[in-house]
């Protein structure tokens, strides 16, 4: 414990440097704007601003990007509550009761509870991250290629399992992502695969053009033809304070949301989205008067908002400790770290303690900055939405092109973004999820390498995956997830994930 406190002191000595503080602040402001804008979620936001971080040192860059991630989660809730527009997917559940509160004139308290809940959840989950990541990293030193392969496979299966729709479709998308990840030079033999003479494809398809295309551009394509911007409600500062009853009602949902969000965040998948859905369902189940949900229940804002912020920190645990991203956003963060010459994984904490602990400390600082920043400035942030959408989306499109081009200075990347935008548009029209494609793309090289290295180690025997205990346990968990999804399908029964989505749908209507 003393060692942890000493390390945290080291972290704060890094995070409280004026330069780092400035980047945390700038990241939070940009992130909040990104969260407010419909169509640019945290993933597209981080991807787009990745080139801006190239000129910075590693710590400043990671602090800036983490600030954008946090800020986007905060910003998304603002538009959900005031306008019923989820700035990003994790805020969908906040729309239901948050907007109902706004219509009753309680939008201010909903915003305040959301901000306080996010702050508490963010801070507590950073403590959990701080305590959990180092021992996990020590444990991960026992991992060899078979264990990594099993872990990555489990990650993809868990993502497919936790996605709201069909597991078959999610698995198909994960495999599609893995196939995209096969493009480029085979790392073991040096053969060019599927690059068709394009030198730029030698290193494979980049995460940024794929992520921006599938998430940013496809959202623009889906929404560009729509008109009628919604009414903007602007609460005054004195209207922000919740009543004593509202504070009391929010206390436990914030606590439950924090624990639930962190636990779900560690599991691979679109954690922050799933955690808010599950938190809402839990709060409704535990409520004495569940009929209030959908009509402005503050618990319906406090729980999901705390859960999605807590999941954000949870998602950093496997990324920092194992070097394995648990979802598309940590995957882009991982790519950003690699650009700066950092290799997240078990050795990061030992070799670059000032970066790891500085990052942890900057998350505390970021949470505080967001709490101070968001409530008084909420009126300014939502003014962005007064810009008519026919002018807003061309501007977002321009940033997409600029951000993607700037990463490698390559027009091929802009072409890939365009193709992925078209693909993402079609996939979403046909009810496919796009997150598994990005995660598959990121994991493909690691997965193939660990698979083939494992076979080299065992002279071609596949038993290596079941004779090593850690690999076996991870594979068994993966098989269990697969079976638990297949069995209800075979027995024509509805599984629990569908039940959640039905209840959410009922609320929306």
């Amino acid at each position, binding site marked *: 414990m003393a060692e942890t406190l000493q390390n945290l002191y080291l972290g704060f000595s890094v995070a409280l440097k004026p330069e780092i503080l400035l980047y945390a602040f700038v990241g939070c402001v940009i992130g909040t704007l990104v969260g407010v804008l419909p169509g640019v979620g945290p993933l597209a936001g981080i991807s787009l601003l990745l*080139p*801006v971080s*190239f*000129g910075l040192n590693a710590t400043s860059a990671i602090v800036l990007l983490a600030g954008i991630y946090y800020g986007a989660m905060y910003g998304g809730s603002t538009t959900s509550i005031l306008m019923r527009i989820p700035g990003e997917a994790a805020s969908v559940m906040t729309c239901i009761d948050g907007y109902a509160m706004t219509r009753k004139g309680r939008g201010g308290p909903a915003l305040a509870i959301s901000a306080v809940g996010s702050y508490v959840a963010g801070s507590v989950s950073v403590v959990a991250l701080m305590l959990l990541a180092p021992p996990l990293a020590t444990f991960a030193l026992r991992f060899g290629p078979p264990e990594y392969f099993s872990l990555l496979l489990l990650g993809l299966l868990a993502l497919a399992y936790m996605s709201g729709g069909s597991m*078959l*479709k999610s*698995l*198909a998308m994960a*495999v*599609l992502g*893995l*196939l995209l990840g*096969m493009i480029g030079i*085979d790392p*073991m*033999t040096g*053969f060019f*695969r*599927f690059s068709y003479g394009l030198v730029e494809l030698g290193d494979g398809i980049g995460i940024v053009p794929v992520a921006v295309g599938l998430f940013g*551009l496809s959202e*623009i*394509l*889906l929404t*560009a*033809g*729509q008109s009628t911007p919604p009414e903007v409600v602007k609460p005054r500062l004195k209207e922000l304070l919740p009543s004593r009853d509202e504070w009391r009602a929010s206390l436990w949902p914030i606590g439950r949301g924090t624990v639930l969000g962190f636990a779900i965040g560690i599991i691979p998948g679109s954690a922050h989205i799933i955690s808010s859905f599950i938190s809402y369902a839990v709060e409704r189940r535990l409520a004495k008067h569940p009929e209030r949900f959908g009509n402005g229940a503050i618990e319906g804002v406090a729980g999901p908002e705390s859960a999605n912020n807590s999941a954000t920190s949870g998602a950093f645990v496997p990324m920092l400790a194992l070097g394995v991203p648990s979802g598309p956003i940590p995957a882009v963060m991982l790519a950003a770290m690699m650009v700066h010459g950092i290799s997240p994984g078990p050795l990061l904490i030992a070799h670059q303690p000032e970066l790891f602990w500085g990052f942890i400390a900057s998350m505390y600082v970021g949470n505080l900055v967001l709490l101070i920043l968001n409530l008084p400035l909420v009126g300014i942030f939502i003014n962005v939405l007064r810009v008519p959408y*026919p*002018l807003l*989306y*061309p*501007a977002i*499109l*321009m*940033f997409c*092109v*600029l951000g993607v*081009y*700037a990463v490698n*200075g390559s*027009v091929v990347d*802009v*072409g890939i*973004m*365009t193709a992925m*935008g*078209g693909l993402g*548009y079609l996939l979403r*029209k*046909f*009810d*496919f999820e796009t997150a598994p494609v990005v995660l598959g793309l990121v994991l493909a090289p690691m997965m*193939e390498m660990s*698979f*083939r290295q494992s*076979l080299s180690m065992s*002279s*071609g*025997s596949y038993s290596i995956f079941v004779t090593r205990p850690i690999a076996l346990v991870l594979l068994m968990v993966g098989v269990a997830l697969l079976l638990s999804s297949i069995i209800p399908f075979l027995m024509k029964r509805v599984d629990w994930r569908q039940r959640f989505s039905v209840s959410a749908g009922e609320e929306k209507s």
Partner: protein
Amino acid sequence: MVIPYCVFRGAIIPKSVSHIKRFFSGMPGGVLLQSAGMLTNDRLSGCVLAIFALLVIWESRLLPLGTFRAPGPAFVPVLLASLLLSFGVLLLVTSGDTRRLASVTWAGWRHVLGILGSCVFAVFAIERLGYRLTVLVVLIFLVKILEKRGWIVAGIFAFVLAFGSFFLFYTVLRVPLPQGPLGF
């Protein structure tokens, strides 16, 4: 179930298309034939995924496959494509009660084509015309032609964004952006 038959070129076949469907529905390939009759989102998606998987397998023929115990560079792509093929076929045969294809609306197709076209233009123009000129043209096209705003609004908006973003990213943040032959 009695299905009316007729004789065609010496063979006994069901009388009409609906009879053909009923005739085949009890056979192993019947599901596929029914699929063609009732096209759902998932069935079309399944078909496309299966075709894509076959294409990947075909393209992998140029690379060494290796053996089961010592995989070559084509091994994992073929393995993944085979998985995708099976997912595609599963999607095709298990999705009878999903959304019909006709329920998908394409109301915003003009915008979709316009935006994708702008991106394609950017791919070809950004290094030839430079960042500022390319963005200027794209924004004027989107705002004036696609969104039907006035020339003044479109012009000012495009000019401010193209030159403003260049100044911010190129000059202030030192992000390398192409200048083009005219210095734009």
